[in-house]
């Protein structure tokens, strides 16, 4: 009996469609991801097992390696209120032009007595060259800033106010303590610190008995 002849088909698969899909996904991911703003200051944050994601519209206090403190307000709706509040309470006499300039700065990092002159510079000063907000126990200007921040958020729920501290690993503890005292002076007892995500060490208590109600 003659065998039925099966026609041999090519094993070549047309890759074009797959290639299209791959590059479509690729372009989607590239376009959809937010570009990280260039880091003005290099801050190496410590790591923690916390898994909560830090929000970007927070009031961020940056502590650099050498103990300089900067304030940045990611929430544009309140930034103006904070700056105008501090202008009023500290009698800084900033003009409307200077206020607008200050609002444009990402980092506020000058003591009150130098704020006006630094804003009058033709080219804005880079954040690294700023002096930092004084936080000593005798002259804690950060506490005044925090007071202005909490004033700006008054009337809203406290959850709205996201206080973040982003400190460098090598910053000495007293600077961190000064920042904390700036908060407690304004009766703010809850804040967050920015950390790098880190896996829970295996065999630790937390890994064996993960918290249920969180």
């Amino acid at each position, binding site marked *: 009996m003659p065998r039925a002849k099966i026609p041999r088909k090519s094993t070549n698969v047309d*890759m074009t469609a797959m*290639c299209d899909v791959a590059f479509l996904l690729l372009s989607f991911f590239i376009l959809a991801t937010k570009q990280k703003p260039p880091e003005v200051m290099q801050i190496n944050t410590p790591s*923690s097992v916390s898994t909560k994601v830090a929000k970007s519209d927070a009031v961020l206090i940056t502590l650099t390696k050498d103990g300089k403190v900067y304030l940045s307000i990611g929430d544009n709706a309140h930034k103006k209120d904070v700056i105008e509040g501090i202008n009023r309470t500290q009698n800084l006499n900033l003009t409307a032009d200077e206020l607008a300039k200050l609002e444009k700065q990402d980092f506020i990092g000058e003591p009150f007595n130098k704020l006006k002159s630094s804003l009058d510079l033709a080219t804005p000063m880079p954040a690294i060259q700023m002096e930092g907000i004084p936080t000593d126990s005798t002259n804690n200007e950060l506490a005044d800033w925090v007071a202005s921040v909490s004033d700006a958020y008054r009337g809203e729920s406290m959850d709205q106010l996201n206080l973040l501290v982003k400190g460098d690993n090598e910053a000495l503890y007293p600077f961190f303590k000064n920042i904390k005292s700036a908060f407690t002076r304004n009766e703010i007892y809850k804040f*967050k610190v920015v950390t790098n995500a880190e896996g829970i060490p295996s065999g630790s*208590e937390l890994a064996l008995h993960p918290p249920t109600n969180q």
Partner: protein
Amino acid sequence: MAELDTSSGGGHKKGPGVKKSPKKSTRVDLTPMVDLGFLLITFFVFTTTMSQPTAMNLNEPKPDPKTELDIKESAAMTILLGKDNKIYYYYGILTDPNSQFKSSDFKDIRQLIVDKKKVTPSKDLMYIIKSDNKSTYKNSIDILDEMTICAVPPGHYAEVDMSPMEATLIQKTEEVNGIK
């Protein structure tokens, strides 16, 4: 899809003497390109999720003189953070520094915390954290993270200012150990 119609229209004849060149396939193997595409996708997916910074909650105690903490001496462990990522600790009240005051580091402290937790009734357990002026921000965050890792419930550890006696003790110990 990746082919072009190279066949010439019917009826067109080449003149005599024109040699017919062999027709080659214009099919391109797209497999490497697909590989590359997916490799890039994986790369982007991983890098974007990894760099997400996290936030750790910190609660400061309210300075309220009414709520002075009553700590049982037997249930307390005091952790002192010193220079150069060193940790010093003692149990209870520091009466005899020579025998009580011990040094450790961030590798061993987890075991010490867990050991203390095991031998102490959980309602009395208290860790007192004190940071020296020479310790770093990383140290104080790390030790609080260590509390979370060891599942010490909130309210059973507190950050307290260091007493001058403890500060001098740390300084002396550092001098002995040659830490500058």
